[in-house]
């Protein structure tokens, strides 16, 4: 989604400034001065005063360092101390989202309000129709008592002047699973057990209160230490700049990544796995198989009691990470994608064949973060000599298609068709594509198991697929068009 606004700009600027400080070797010395530097000059005050703005900037930097930005309790502790902890190998939090309570507006509980357009009419349908007696006349205008109002909306619908409006609480409005809770004072709290990390609250909140706990500084630290840092790039992240994907790969190499790998190549293998599992599942009498590449969906499936329909395939990210670690156990693997939930998925270690566990992914950068980091390094994607993608994974058009809705289902069906070439009989099944986990689609998702007949279900939390993720640089529509070019890219 296109999200041109001041918060987006501010966040990208902060990431860029942190990157510059790190490149110049001044991160620890100068990070505490950043809130002052940024608010000097022609800064337009946002809150009540510049001091408040600086306190907010400090909290935003704290979340970019990977810490929760919930309170102000440690206001005395310099950012330098936090940054040092990160550079010294602090284990990142498992849950990658926090609410910056200081920034939360504590949006009002009562969502229906009477505006100045109220004419104080004779009919007073708002008052007559209210089932809770919440509407009374104060002076010549209607008034809704927030304590009595149950948000049924009858008053709004009955007013001939459209004088009653619904004031939404943006985060609650978009949360598909009811994970936003409110404190007494109205500030939001995320119920981590319910949250599926779709990131909708983050993009919906005009106060920028929900913030990610970023890995930016951890990645900069690994690069600074001269580690063998491998970038694993999601197909959706390959199409965030309006230039060929090969140029983006070259830009990442210039930035300092020792290797850049198309995660779409691992997606090809995941589609194979899913196809094989579908055949087996249907043989065993399991009639529904759901894709498991979207981590938000994986989280949601648990709460909706659908976990057992998920394919056991690892996600393309995890598989690419395992392959990178097997090639070089000392590698520092960084997944780059437009997704918030991948950061949660990346925190888990996995068992590998032959015993033992590994941590396939060491850090996750969002497309937005990567863009801001390239900006800090003054790397022009357009001017790079395009790398030959055949040397970075050589993924098929099907693997690259994982970035859009229907893409995964198509890849699985394609993989099945090639299995049919082995002379095996194909089971008959129908496919269902769920494009976006929203309040509207959740009820059907909770009933997947009840479906009659054989079913392959593809679920993506974001409408249209990963190209419409919460941490993109480019509008989903543009990125989808760019994806077609990426899918068609032939070896140079």
């Amino acid at each position, binding site marked *: 989604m296109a999200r041109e606004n001041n918060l987006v*700009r501010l966040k990208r*600027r902060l990431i860029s400034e942190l990157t510059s400080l790190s490149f110049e070797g001044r991160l620890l010395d100068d990070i505490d001065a950043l809130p002052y530097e940024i608010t000097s000059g022609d800064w337009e005050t946002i809150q009540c005063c510049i001091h408040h703005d600086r306190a907010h900037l400090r909290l935003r930097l704290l979340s970019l360092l990977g810490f929760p930005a919930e309170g102000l309790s440690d206001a005395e502790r310099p950012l330098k101390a936090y940054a040092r902890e990160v550079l010294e190998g602090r284990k990142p939090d498992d849950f990658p989202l926090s609410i910056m309570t200081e920034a939360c507006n504590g949006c009002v509980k009562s969502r229906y309000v009477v505006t100045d357009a109220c004419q104080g009419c004779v009919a007073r349908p708002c008052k007559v129709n209210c089932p809770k007696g919440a509407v009374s006349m104060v002076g010549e205008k209607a008034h809704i008592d927030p304590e009595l109002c149950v948000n049924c909306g009858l008053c709004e619908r009955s007013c001939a002047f459209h004088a009653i409006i619904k004031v939404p609480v943006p985060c609650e409005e978009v949360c598909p699973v009811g994970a936003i809770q409110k404190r007494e004072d109205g500030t939001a709290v995320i119920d981590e057990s319910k949250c599926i990390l779709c990131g909708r609250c983050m993009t919906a909140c005009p106060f920028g209160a929900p913030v990610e706990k970023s890995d930016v500084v951890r990645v900069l630290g690994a690069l600074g230490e001269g580690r063998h840092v491998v970038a694993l790039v999601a197909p959706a992240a390959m199409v*965030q700049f*309006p230039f060929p994907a090969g140029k983006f790969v070259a830009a990442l190499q210039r930035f300092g990544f020792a290797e850049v790998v198309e995660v779409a190549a691992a997606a090809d293998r995941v589609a194979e796995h899913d196809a094989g599992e579908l055949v087996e599942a249907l043989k065993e009498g399991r009639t529904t198989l759901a894709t498991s590449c979207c981590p938000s969906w994986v989280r949601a499936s648990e709460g909706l009691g659908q976990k057992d329909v998920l394919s056991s395939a690892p996600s393309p990210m995890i598989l690419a990470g395992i392959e990178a670690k097997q090639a070089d156990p000392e590698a520092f693997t960084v997944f780059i994608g437009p997704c918030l939930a991948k950061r949660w998925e990346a925190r888990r270690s996995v068992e590998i064949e032959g015993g033992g566990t590994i941590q396939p992914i060491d850090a996750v950068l969002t497309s*937005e973060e990567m863009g801001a980091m390239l900006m800090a390094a003054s790397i022009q*994607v*357009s*001017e790079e000599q395009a790398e030959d993608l055949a040397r970075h994974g050589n993924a098929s058009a099907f693997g690259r298609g994982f970035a859009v809705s229907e893409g995964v289902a198509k890849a699985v069906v394609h993989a099945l068709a090639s299995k049919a070439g082995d002379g095996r009989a194909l089971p008959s099944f129908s496919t269902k594509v769920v494009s976006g986990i929203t309040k509207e689609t959740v009820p059907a998702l909770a009933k997947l198991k009840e479906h009659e007949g054989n079913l392959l279900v593809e679920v993506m939390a974001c409408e249209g697929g990963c190209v419409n993720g919460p941490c993109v*640089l480019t*509008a989903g529509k543009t990125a989808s068009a760019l994806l077609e070019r990426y899918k068609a890219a032939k070896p140079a």
Partner: protein
Amino acid sequence: MNQVHVTICTGTACYVMGGADLLGAVDILLEKYGGRVVCEGSTCLGYCKLGKQHKAPFVKVNDRLLAQATVESLEKAVEEALGAAAGDGQADADRSGAGKGEGVPGPACGEADNG
């Protein structure tokens, strides 16, 4: 017929700071003004290198430079430029309310206007 030339910088800083959304504005401009507006993307115009990365994205409408350009300020600037082209060439005299575009000194066009 006078045409208005819109040059949208697609250098990394401009693209990341909002230029991605401006590309979407191109369709709006073409639909609204047809052949009277010529839009082109450009490699880095160099304005961000003046320590003004946070003033990106930069867009040029004829010779006028817009900083922190938005779809809104771009449309407004194009409208003004079209009005000027149709008028008597006194466009430069009236540049009040240039939208959200904010002026910064650029390497190519000397002094830009203040929005």
